[in-house]
């Protein structure tokens, strides 16, 4: 329980939980330019009004696990990526406020929609940007980070589409699916661009991916990602068809798009880890060097093992209580 690998795995779990859970509600905001109707926007926001707070808690959880288990990386990463981190935080503040005030306002709801859309987009972009910073080990403003910024935005938007399809508002479902078809192409292209750019930038990484026998078990990753992308594309067509011909929507696999997108994220994440591991900041600091003293880890470990399953259980219960169609605005 005190090994560096355990804490690294826990950190990865927290990051993935955050990316998936807050990803879809950030994604809704990123999709706002394509959903301009007041009622549509109200429905989109209220479909996540009861969960966004819990979703964002995973960001805090990831932060404090990094702080507790790898304090030097927490310090170096956040001060290194200072401006994108601060801008992301402020963007999250603005969109969080939009949740609170959107439905209490009578005259200013348009402004809160803008705050929600813009805040979500900027937060998503900054998270991608910081990811680019970490992966490339370069904390400056560079093209690579801009690329990863937009890639993460597109990925979140795709998750947002998946959420809208689950939430069963037929008219919006079809438009979300049409958008998803475009987005999956964008995401895949961005994946390719990021991989190529990264391989071109660092010889170290090139050696890692193309050395024998690693290439054997790494090759399936990009192949799987492309296959998954194609599946998502075809699945969207299938669902659009089903919805337009008014097949009983209970028979349609509405959750599948979201699940497939999560898998796509998972593949991308594994790809990143292959490139990084065992470094946390490339060529600078490994997880073993950054690991906190045993006394600290031994204190947190039982908490994680006992509490995390409980947290997951009541989070799931919360989703269960509010499952199904969005009811009304609050």
């Amino acid at each position, binding site marked *: 329980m005190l090994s560096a690998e355990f804490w690294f795995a826990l950190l990865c779990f927290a990051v993935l939980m955050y990316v998936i859970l807050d990803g879809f509600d950030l994604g809704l905001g990123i999709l706002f330019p394509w959903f301009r109707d007041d009622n549509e926007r109200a429905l989109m926001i209220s479909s996540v009004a009861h969960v966004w707070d819990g979703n964002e808690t995973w960001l805090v959880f990831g*932060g404090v696990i990094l*702080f507790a288990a790898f304090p030097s990386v*927490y*310090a170096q990463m956040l001060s290194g990526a200072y401006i994108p981190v601060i801008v992301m*935080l402020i963007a999250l503040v603005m969109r969080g*406020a939009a949740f609170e005030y959107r439905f209490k306002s009578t005259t200013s709801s348009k402004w809160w929609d803008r705050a929600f859309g813009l805040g979500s987009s900027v937060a998503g972009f900054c998270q991608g940007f910081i990811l680019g910073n970490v992966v490339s080990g370069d904390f400056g403003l560079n093209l690579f980070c801009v690329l990863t910024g937009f890639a993460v935005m597109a990925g979140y938007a795709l998750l947002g589409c998946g959420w809208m399809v689950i939430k069963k508002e037929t008219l919006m479902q079809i438009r979300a699916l049409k958008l998803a078809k475009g987005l999956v192409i964008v995401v895949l292209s961005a994946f390719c661009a990021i991989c190529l750019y990264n391989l071109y930038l660092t010889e170290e990484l090139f050696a890692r991916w193309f050395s024998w026998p690693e290439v054997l078990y790494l090759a399936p990753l990009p192949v799987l990602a492309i296959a998954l992308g194609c599946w998502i594309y075809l699945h969207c067509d299938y669902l659009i068809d089903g919805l337009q011909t008014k097949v009983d929507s209970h028979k349609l696999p509405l959750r599948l798009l979201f699940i497939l997108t999560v898998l796509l994220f998972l593949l991308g994440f594994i790809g990143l880890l292959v490139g990084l591991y065992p470094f946390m900041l490339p060529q600078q600091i490994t997880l073993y060097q950054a690991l906190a*003293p045993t006394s600290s880890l031994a*204190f947190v470990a039982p908490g994680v093992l006992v509490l995390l399953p409980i947290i997951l259980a009541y989070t799931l219960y919360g989703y269960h*209580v509010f499952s199904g169609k969005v009811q009304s605005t609050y």
Partner: protein
Amino acid sequence: MEAEVLSRIQMAFTLSFHIIFPTLTIGLACYIALMETCWYVSSKSRFRAQADFWLKPFALTFGMGVVTGVVLSYEFGANFSEFSNVAGPVIGPLMAYEVMTAFFLEAGFLGIMLFGRNRVSKKIYLASCITVSVGTLISAFWIIAANSWMQTPAGAVLVDGQYQVESWFEVIFNPSFGYRLVHMLLASFVTTGFVIAGVGAALLLRDKSNTVAKFCLSKAALALVVLTPLQIAVGDMHGLNVLAHQPAKVAAMEGIWETEQGAGLRLLAWPNQTAGKNDWEIKIPHAASLILTHELDGEVVGLNDFGKENIPNVAFVFFSFRVMLGIGVLMLLTAIVAAWRVRKGTVDQGVYWLRWLKYMIPSGFIATLAGWYVAEVGRQPWVVYNAIRTVDVASPLSASKLYLSLTLFVICYSLLFVVYLYFMRKTLLRGDRHNPPQMAQLDSHNMVKEVHHA
């Protein structure tokens, strides 16, 4: 300005802005949970009306606390990277427990509390309300533990430039922890009490017959007459604890520069940091010694004995302390008058009295902030008391980056604060309009039930 100073200003600004909201949500969560419990047990609609009335203001405030709190969990690393590295093994795990035992709990059950009354059973709804309030208390426990450890570090030693914990029990239950936790929780309850009383008064000024407002006012008055004196007593005990562990801070609070036997209590003074003395002062002879040492001629160590490089900004601490004390006295007097008026049955009457209560709404927040400034500015120049200096552990950032981030925070937070106050006011006034018919409905519902039972 130097980057280190800017980082400190930004941290102080974002922390100050944040603490406003938890101060109210801790108290309101407990109040709502209490009202829900009374409603569950007695089925009397006046309790349900209170819970309903305060739920939306609570939600607004809680939301503000969440969004401004997320910022803080990342700001340690962003602005004080060296501190995060050195003290991370102590602070990090405490915050990890805060997230695991409190934040998830609050977030998980807040959704049900706000939107789920019709989706879950009465029992589960009540349990959710209680869970959220317990969550706020647990959150306070951990963050005060972390803060108190920075004030009175114990249980950990520096090894190769990083703290290693020897005893977590000593880290958490460090010498100032208990005093600080009780003082903060009471601050939160008293602040909430004055908000509830003040809002009740403001509503009564608009409509004399408002029963929800009358309930707010009379119950808050009774709570405050107990809580306010208690808070003052706890504050005094906390002060003695500070004297034992951080004597330089107490000297700054009292404005005492030279070590004295029988030190006078400076009621007002103008501390001069460069000259190392007060430019002028009004004092009661021997009173400071009497309060601090319980002897007329007890010795109080003065600031100059600690060395110029080891004392905080004296004027800031000195005046913040007086603001806190002054408001504390006003609160005590108000609470006594309120209780006396409850006894006489006139607590909800008199335009001037009600106006006074309305003006007291911000009192708790100001006193709490002033108290935090005494504690935190008084800790300087140390970030971990007597061990690590703040100046040594700020992030190596350029001043221009900090000017940018600080400007963004100031603009964004100022805007949010105005918006928050606007919507709070609107929600409170509207809540007042919507409640009576709902209450009537509930009452008739209960009557039907009672008739059936009979």
